[in-house]
């Protein structure tokens, strides 16, 4: 009997996955971008199989937004304090990493690639989740707890679009998925681990320049809808605050516009197109600042907020 065609990366035979990575490449279809990954770093295959388990197996020929290649260090760096190096379409955006941190290097490299290349969209530095057709945009400075909150929402009934990129379609300001594993740092790894003990998490990488890093794998439902856009409804500027259980404060739309524009990867580059797209997005959204220490309360209240938000203003 012929075996069923393998639909997802998680179902591949590990040897076949290693062979694909070492050969024509493994395709990561993230929704708004398709990235081809090639690598001779053997441990990477198993890690990717966990983090991208739900992603479809796709042919490695065709057009991609980028091809990233990770290889082991050359010469002495293959053996002595071994390193891994990342190339993006032949160029090296970062210095090599220690060989035991392939996933952080890959994920940051892909982030860098998206942030510098995907200029057919307005790219906000934000997490994005969606429920009932309404998207919550979570722009935040690093360290504000954005990824923790995004992960918590994504494991409580919200569809995950991204924890790093708010990809805004210029024509109508809808958000597009840039679906990738959620990068968690330091304490947030255990927080999310307790919050969603059944969620698939990749290995921990201590001693990165951001501390200890681990990644939460996107769920299959979010992956299957990675080509579905979402209408913006709510913009939340989150900040974890140990002194505040939960506080949601309205933000003037004009001020939210300014904060989003400053927190964008390419607002200035796109000129009038980004101005139009961002003003339209803000016009469709209710905007708030959130201070919280209770993840349970934050997720519950944001669920209610989205349920009663009317995206048509």
């Amino acid at each position, binding site marked *: 009997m012929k075996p069923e065609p393998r639909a997802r990366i998680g179902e591949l035979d590990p040897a076949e996955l290693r062979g694909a990575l070492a050969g024509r490449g493994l395709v990561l279809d993230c929704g708004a971008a398709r990235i081809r990954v090639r690598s001779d770093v053997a441990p990477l295959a198993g890690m990717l199989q966990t983090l991208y388990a739900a992603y479809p197996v796709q042919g490695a020929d065709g057009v991609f937004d980028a091809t990233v290649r990770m290889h082991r260090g050359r010469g002495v760096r293959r053996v002595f304090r071994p390193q891994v190096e990342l190339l993006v379409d032949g160029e090296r955006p970062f210095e090599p990493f220690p060989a035991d941190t392939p996933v952080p290097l890959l994920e940051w490299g892909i982030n860098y690639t998206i942030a510098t290349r995907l200029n057919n969209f307005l790219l906000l530095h934000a997490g994005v989740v969606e429920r009932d057709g309404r998207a919550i945009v979570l722009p935040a400075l690093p360290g504000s707890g954005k990824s923790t909150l995004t992960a918590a929402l994504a494991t409580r009934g919200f569809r995950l679009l991204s924890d790093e990129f708010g990809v805004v379609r210029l024509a109508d300001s809808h958000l597009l998925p840039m679906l990738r594993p959620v990068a968690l740092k330091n304490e947030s790894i255990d927080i999310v681990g307790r919050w969603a003990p059944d969620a698939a998490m990749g290995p921990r990488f201590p001693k990165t320049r951001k501390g200890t890093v681990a990644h939460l794998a996107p769920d299959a439902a979010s992956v299957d809808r990675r080509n579905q856009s979402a209408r913006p409804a709510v913009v939340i500027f989150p900040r974890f605050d140990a002194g505040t259980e939960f506080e949601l404060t309205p933000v*003037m*739309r*004009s*001020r939210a*516009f*300014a904060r989003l*524009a400053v927190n964008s990867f390419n*607002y*200035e580059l796109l*000129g*009038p197109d980004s*101005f*139009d797209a961002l*003003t339209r997005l*803000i*016009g469709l959204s209710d905007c708030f600042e959130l201070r919280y220490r209770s993840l349970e309360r934050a997720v519950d209240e944001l669920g209610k907020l989205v349920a009663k938000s009317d995206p048509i203003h």
Partner: protein
Amino acid sequence: MTVQFSACAGLRIVHLDDESVVFHPKTWSSHLLNASAAAVLEFVIERSRSRDEIETLLARLLDPAEQPSLLRHVDGVIENLRLIDLIHEA
């Protein structure tokens, strides 16, 4: 001859709550304007205006408590709009 102020051509203005955001097509810069600055800019976009006309506009818009600082306010708004190249002397 009285100095007149004109708005730069092609400005895109969007009202968001009580303030406005403006895009300058020549510099590709974006600006957030408070209510006073937005009112003056739209006033000047209609046609060139003198300082006295702008002062009359702002006198109508300001709260009574702010009236003593009207002159300084007018100068400040005009100067700030000039600095970011949204208006210029006609």
